Structures are given as C-alpha cells and as structure tokens.
C-alpha cells in the first residue's frame, strides 16, 4: 500500500505526538502517583512509547484505538507497577469525579456523523468538516486539549484537570464551555453565518 508520506514525515508525526503529550502525561501520572519522581515518570513515558509501538506491530492494538487515551492507560499501568516494585505504592488516587459517570464511550452511543448531517450531501459534509478541523487547530490552548479529550478521547474532567494543571474540575468545565462557545463563534464566522 502506498502512503502519501515520506519516512521523515512519519518520524516528525511521532515526534510531534511525543513532544506534545509529554507534559500532560507527566502531570497526569504525577497527580495519580506522587511517590514517583519526575525522572522516573520521564523514563516511564519513553518506555510507554516503545511499548505501544511493540503492541501495534504485534497486532495487539484494537482497530479504532484512541491513541492518547491508550498511551495514558499503558503509561499509568507501568507507573503503578514501578511504584509497587519499589515498595512506594500506597494508594492510587482515582481520577474520577461525580460528574463523569462513564467517560469511556461518552457521546458515541448517541452521536454519529451520519446522524448529525444525514440531510446533507457528501460534498457539503466534507467541506463543513474540513472547516471545523481547521478552526479546531486555531483554538488557543488549552481549548484543543480540553475539547478533544472530553468529546473524543473519553477523558474525565478530573483527568483533564491533572493533565493541564488546573485547580478544580469546575474550572475545567467552565473553560470547556467557553472553548465550545469560542469554537461555535469561529465556525459561524467561517461559514458566514455571523455578521
């Protein structure tokens, strides 16, 4: 199969992921397992990337895997093992809160692209989605992280809070709503629906 990428593109794509997830990963694991030192978490992060690639090449990764969530889960498991091995494992903090009942499959039961735009032709759908994707990229951080994590990645508010270093889930929720409002304004502007 031919892919529209050169080898250096593959390397760049993985590098971008590795760099962009590094700090959120460290914040996330550090919040859950403060007994681990930052250097140890750094090592776990590198080992996680090696491990997920091995799993992929060996066919142990399900189709349609959400990679950020997968990386965080594998890394979390490795971090727990490391803490247990060194007898520093006391109690893992649960990254959940009351407002996140079932974050894993959030929205998927009720929502699909077909349902959302079933009355539109394929070209219109494709154009609108392309505009949406572009506008999502132009959102200021932490908007892209919060919105993708919540609406796509299945992360809980508590998990996102750890990732972006906010002080409460209410702050994250409030920012999420502001980010959605911002995205809506940008989309309406891009589609010529706002004056």
């Amino acid at each position, binding site marked *: 199969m031919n892919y529209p*990428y050169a*080898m250096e*593109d*593959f*390397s760049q*794509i*993985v*590098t971008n*992921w*590795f760099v962009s997830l590094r700090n959120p990963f*460290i*914040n996330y694991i*550090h919040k859950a397992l403060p*007994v681990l*030192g*930052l*250097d140890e978490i*750094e*090592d776990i992060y*590198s080992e996680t*990337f*090696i491990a*997920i*690639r091995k799993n*992929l090449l060996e066919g142990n990764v399900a189709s349609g895997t959400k*990679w950020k969530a997968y990386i965080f889960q594998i890394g979390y498991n490795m971090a727990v093992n490391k803490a247990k091995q060194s007898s520093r494992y006391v109690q893992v903090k649960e990254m959940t809160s009351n407002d996140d009942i079932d974050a894993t499959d959030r*929205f998927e*039961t*009720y*929502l699909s692209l077909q*349902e*959302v*735009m079933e009355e539109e032709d394929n070209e219109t759908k494709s154009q*609108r*989605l392309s505009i*949406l*994707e572009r506008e*999502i*990229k*132009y*959102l*200021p*951080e*932490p*908007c892209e992280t919060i919105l*993708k994590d919540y*609406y*796509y*990645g299945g992360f809980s508010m508590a998990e996102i809070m750890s990732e972006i*270093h906010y*002080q409460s889930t209410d702050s994250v929720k409030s*920012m999420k*709503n*502001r*980010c*959605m*409002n*911002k995205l*809506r304004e940008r*989309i309406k502007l891009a589609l010529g629906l706002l004056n």
Partner: protein
Amino acid sequence: MNNYKDNIDMFDAYLNGTMSNTDRSVFESQLKADANLSQEFSIHKELIAGLQQAGTNADHEFENALKHLSDQEMETITERISIRNKIIPQGRVVPLRKVYSWVAVAAAVVMIAGAGGYQYHQIQTRNRLCDAIFTAGFNPDMTLTRSGDQGDSEAYSEAINRLKHGETVDAISALEKLYSEANDEMRIEYGTSLAYAYVKAHDLDKAWETINSVKSISQQLYGETPLELESLIQAMSGQNLK
C-alpha cells in the same frame, strides 16, 4: 433568545444519557417547540462531530506513522526528546528518600554558595515554568489569523513573527508601541500577545500588569475575559507564578 454557552451542560447531559427520564422528556419537548434551541443543539452536535473527526484523523495518522518507524528511529525520538530541559511542577511531593539526598545537596550548596544558591535555583525553576507556559499557550497561527480577520497592521504580524522566532526583546518593543497607540478593542489583542511576550522574557511583574489591564478593558467592553488571556491566567496561577 437562547444563550448557547448556558445550554452546553444540558446538551451534553442529553447526549451522554445522564439526564433523568423526566428532564429528557422536557428537553425533547423544548426542542420541538423552540426553533432557536433546536438550531443551537444541531450546531453543538456538529461541533462534536468535528472534534471526533479531527481526533480520528489524528489517530489514523499517528498509527500509520508509528507502524512505519524503524526501531532505531523510535529510539532516537524517545532518547533525543527526553534529555531536553525538564519541567518541575509546582507543589511536587518528594519521596522521603529523595528528601534526604536533597538535604545533603542543599547543605553543600549552602556551604559553597550561601543563600544565593537557593535563590538562583528558584529563579531557574520559575524561568523554566515561564518557558513552558509560553510554549504551551502561545499560538502564533491563531494570533495572526485573528489579526488578519480584523485587518491589522503589518507591524503586528512582524512583531508576532519575531516573538515566534525568539527575538523577544524586539517583539516586546514593537508590541508595547502597538499596545500604547491602539484603541481599546485592539488593545485586547495586542495586550494578550504582549503579556505572553513578557512571560517569554520571564518578566512576571509586567506580564501581570498587562494581564490586569487587558482584563479590565475586556470586562468593560464585552463583560468577559478573552479566552487566550484566561488560559494564560489559569496557567500562571496554577503554577503560582505571581
């Protein structure tokens, strides 16, 4: 007239299936009766679809790239990045064993360099946090697009490019000039970039001064703080950068 932002929690609860049966029935009746609400709900679903599409595309791209990397390339990526400068989160809990070794190191530092050593370490840590906040939060593409939307000057684009390429002092001079000469509306945009530039220059006093000034203007004009500025405030407050 419906305010979209105020309805987001309700929309999400409905789509998540976390609404009670009674609330669900009420909401569905409202959707049928209120065309504005129904339209806002459609837009909300479309935004989520876009976010999911963007997430799926990024995942496919990453999976494909990961499959095609050699062991050596993978090792190079993980090793090269790992040795770059490391960030120390605020409020870190240090294991007891490490405390003892830190105490020993600290004692040696005190003997050698006196109190200045500790102060130097604090400054270094603060500077690293500033760099991390700037890198994570400043989006030059977003800034330039917005300024393009509003027909802003070339001087602003030039200043942002300078900031992007590490010419921080020149960028600050240009942004300070633009900020001092602009009307209130444009001061919000210039001021937000200027605040980021001060963070990049590790000048927290001026960063906060600018943040507070821009926040005040924005509150007066629009009754809220711009999102880009709010992100910066949250990041700086979260790291106790006063």
